[in-house]
C-alpha cells in the first residue's frame, strides 16, 4: 500500500507561519510517496524542539523522544527490526548540541539511518538562544554580547568522522531537498542532510532571503572525492554550496552483526527451554 504525498501529512502543526519546517515536511512526504514506502514500513525518530514535532505531522511510525536523544533509540529500533526504514529528524540544537556525542559516535557505527537536521542556526522552542551553528556575533537574550564561540560545522565533522553520505540542502529549494532525501533514505548506511532553513521568529540574520542570495549548486563530478567534499563543506559566507558532497557506502552496523542476518529480531519466535544447555558452561 502506498500513498500520495498529501496522505503522509497528518495533524495540525504548531509551527510559526512562514517556518522552513513546512517545506521540509512537504519534501519528506513527497520523498516517501515517490519511494513507494507505506506508512507502516517507515519509522520517524525525533528529539525535542520545533523540528522534532515532525512525527506528529507525518503519518508513519513515530518515536518522539528526549532532547538530544533521537539517534540512540533510532539505532535500537533498527537493530530490533531491520526491515524498518528509519529516519531521524530533529533540529540543530538537538542533533549537534545536546546530542553531539551521539552524532559523532553514530557516524562511527554507520547504521542504515537517514538523519535530516533542520538547521535554522537558532533555538526556536526556548525562544531564540544561540545554537551550535549560530553565527559569531549573533545577539540573543542569553548571548547578550553576541555569540563568542565558533560555530560547529556539521558536514566537516561528519566527513572527518567517516560518514558515507553528507549533503546540504535548503528548505527554499524543495525539489532538490526531496530528491536528496530520497537518495539519503536509499543510501545503505548513515546519511546526513544538513538542511538550512529560516527561523522567522528568532533568527533575523539568516533569513530566507539571506540564504536565497547565497546558495548555489556546484557541479559535483565525483562525490567519492573526500577532499573535494571537505572543501565544499567548509564553504560559507557569500557562497553556500548545496548538494550531495560525499556519497560512498561502507560496511553498515547491521551488516557487521551476526545476530542481524535473516528475519528481524522482533519477529523471531523464541522458547526459553531451548536454551537450557547454556548452563553447561558452568558445569
Amino acid at each position, binding site marked *: 500500500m502506498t500513498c500520495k504525498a498529501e496522505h503522509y501529512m497528518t495533524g495540525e502543526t504548531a509551527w510559526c507561519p512562514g517556518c522552513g519546517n513546512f517545506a521540509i515536511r512537504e519534501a519528506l512526504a513527497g520523498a516517501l510517496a515517490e519511494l513507494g514506502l507505506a506508512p507502516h514500513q517507515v519509522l520517524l525518530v525525533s528529539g525535542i524542539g520545533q523540528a522534532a514535532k515532525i512525527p506528529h505531522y507525518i503519518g508513519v511510525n513515530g*518515536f518522539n*523522544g528526549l532532547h538530544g536523544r533521537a539517534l540512540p*533509540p533510532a539505532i535500537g*529500533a533498527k537493530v530490533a527490526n531491520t526491515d524498518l526504514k528509519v529516519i531521524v529528524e530533529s533540529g540543530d540544537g538537538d542533533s549537534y548540541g545536546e546530542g553531539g556525542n551521539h552524532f559523532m559516535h553514530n557516524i562511527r557505527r554507520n547504521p542504515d539511518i537517514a538523519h535530516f537536521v533542520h538547521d535554522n542556526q537558532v533555538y526556536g522552542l526556548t525562544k531564540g538562544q544561540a545554537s551550535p551553528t549560530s553565527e559569531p556575533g549573533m545577539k540573543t537574550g542569553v548571548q547578550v554580547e553576541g555569540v563568542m564561540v565558533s560555530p560547529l560545522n556539521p558536514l566537516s565533522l561528519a566527513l572527518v568522522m567517516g560518514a558515507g553520505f553528507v549533503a546540504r540542502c535548503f528548505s527554499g529549494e524543495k525539489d532538490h531537498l526531496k530528491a536528496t532525501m530520497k537518495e539519503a533514505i536509499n543510501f545503505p548506511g548513515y546519511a546526513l542532510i544538513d538542511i538550512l532553513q529560516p527561523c522567522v521568529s528568532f533568527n533575523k540574520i539568516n533569513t530566507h532571503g539571506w540564504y536565497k542570495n547565497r546558495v548555489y549548486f556546484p557541479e559535483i563530478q565525483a562525490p567519492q572525492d573526500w577532499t573535494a567534499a571537505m572543501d565544499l563543506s567548509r564553504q560559507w559566507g557569500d557562497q553556500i554550496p548545496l548538494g550531495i558532497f560525499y556519497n560512498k557506502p561502507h560496511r553498515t552496523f547491521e551488516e557487521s552483526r551476526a545476530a542481524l542476518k535473516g528475519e528481524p529480531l522482533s519477529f523471531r519466535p523464541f522458547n526459553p527451554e531451548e536454551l537450557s544447555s*547454556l548452563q553447561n558452561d558452568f558445569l
Partner: protein
Amino acid sequence: MEVNVLIGGAAGQGMETIMNLLGKALVKEGFGLIYTKDYMSRVRGGHNFTRLRIAPGHPWTTLESIDVLVALNEETYLRHSDHLTPTGRVIYDPQLFNLPEGESRGVPVELKKLAEEAGGRVMANTVAVGALLVLMGLETSTVEELLKDTFAVKEGVAEKNITALKAGYDSAARSCSACFELPSKNQDGEKLFIDGNQVLGMAALASGCRFLSAYPMTPATGIMNYLAAKSLDYPVVVEQAEDEIAAINMALGASYSGVRAMTCTSGGGFSLMAEGVSLAGMTETPLVIVVAMRPGPATGLPTRTEQSDLEFILHSGHGEFPRAVLSATSHEDAFYRLNKAFELADRYQTPVFFLSDQNFADTHRSVGLYDFSRLGYNRALAAEGDFEKPYKRYRITDSGISPRILPGQYEGEVVLIDSDEHDEKGNIIEDAYTRRAMVDKRMRKLKGLAEEMDEPDLYGDPHPEVLLIGWGSTYGVIREAVDALIARGIKTAMLHFSDLWPLPQKRLRSLLAEVDHSCCIENNAGGQLSRLIRRESGLSIDNNILKYDGRPFLPNEIVKEVQNDL
C-alpha cells in the same frame, strides 16, 4: 568440618583464572562452596584477595577466619595472619619473604622458581593451587582436566600449567599432606559454579533479551561480557554505548521496535539514565534496568559493595509513573526473578528495575541446575483482532494497560509514542482533560503491579521473637546469622525482600505484630528499606544494623549486634 581459604596478592598476578578453575573442580567433585572477591580499583599492584569456603551443604557466605592462607606476597601474610586459625597453614614463597620467627604454620613452596621451571612466572598461582590441593587431601586430576579444556586452543599452555600444578603439589606434600579434612561430598546432583553476573546474563538471554546496550561500569560489566560472548552464537546484539544516556535510549528504541531489551550499570552510570527512565514511564515502553550497586556518592568505592541506591531507584526519573523494583537475593532465585522483571516490563509496559550489588555480582556459589521451563516469554502483544483500527497506542483501559502492537507488524497500522503528554493516538496534547486521563491511566498500572509482588521470604523459627529484615544480596549472610542465633537459643526468623516495589506488606504486617524485636539489616548508612517500610506501612522497625564500609556483612557481625540489642 569446613575449610576456609584466602588467597591474596597484587592485582595483575592472575589469581582469577586459576581460582575459577579450582572452584569449578571442587564443585565437579561434589563439594559445596562459595567464592568471593575483594579487589581494588586498579589493574596492577595493590592488594587483592579471594576467599573460598568449602562447607557442608552449600554455604551462603564466606567467613573471616582462615584455615589456609595463600600469601603470594608478604603483605597478604601481614594483613590476614590475625585471622589464621591456630591449626591453620600459610603457603608462601621463601624466596620472596620469610615468615616471622615463631610462626610455625608455614608451608614453604618456591612458587616463583617452580613456576619459572614450568614455563613462566605467571603460573605461580597454579603452583599455589597444587599446594592447596595436597593440603586438602585432593588429587590434581580434576583441575588438570579443566586446564586442558580451558586452554585447549592455546598450544602448550595447559601442559605448562599442569607441570606447575604438580610441582606445587609435590613441594607442599613434603610439609603437610591432607592436614585439613574437607566436608563430605554432596549427593544432591550436578551443581553449577557460577557468579551473580553470569546468573543474570544467562537469565537475560534465556528470557529472550535480544538487545543489551550499556557502558562498562564495575560491578555490572560481567553481564555485558557474558552476553557479548554469547552474541556470536545467539540472536542477541550487545552494543557498548558512548555513554549511559545513549545506552538507555538505545534500549528503549529496541524495545519500542519489538525486542526484549535491557541495560545494566551501577549508580553513577544510572544517574545519567534518569531522564531515560522517565521516558520509559511516559512512553510506556517495557525496559529492564539492572543496577549493580557499589558505594557512592559519586564514584565512591568502585569495586566494593553497598545497598545505597534503593531510594534513588525508587524515585529516579522526573514526574510520576509506575515502576517495579526487584532485587537479587541469591543465585538460586535471581535467575527466575530477572525473568520476572522481563515479564512484568512487557505486561505493564513500564520500566522494571533489578537491583544487584558487587557482593552478588562477583560471588560464585555452587548451585543446582536451573529449570528453564519455569521461564516466561509472554510478550503481551495484541493479536490481530484484539485491537481497534486505526491503532491507538495509548488507548484508555481499566487496567491502564493499552493493547500493544509493534511498528511494522500490521500493514496500514502505525505506532506513535511521545515523551510529551499525548492523546490515545500518541499525538502531543496540552489540554487538562486528556492530561488527567493519561496520568490516571498510567498510574492505574500500579494496582496490577502491586498484586504481582512476591511476599518476602520467611526463614527460621516458625514462632520468632526476633525478626531480622533484609533485602537483596544479604540473603545468605542473614540466613547464616539466623541459624547461629537459633543455635544460641534465640528464637529468630528472617524476612527477606526480593520484590521491593510496590512494597509487599502482608507478611511484614502480621510478623511485626507478633515479634518482640525487629531489626533491619542493610549495607547502607540510612536504613533505606527501614524508611521505606515506615513510609508505606506506618510501621517502625526497632533497630537498624547498618554497614557502609564497602564490605559485605559477616554472619558473626550480625549475631553480635543482635545479641547486643536484646
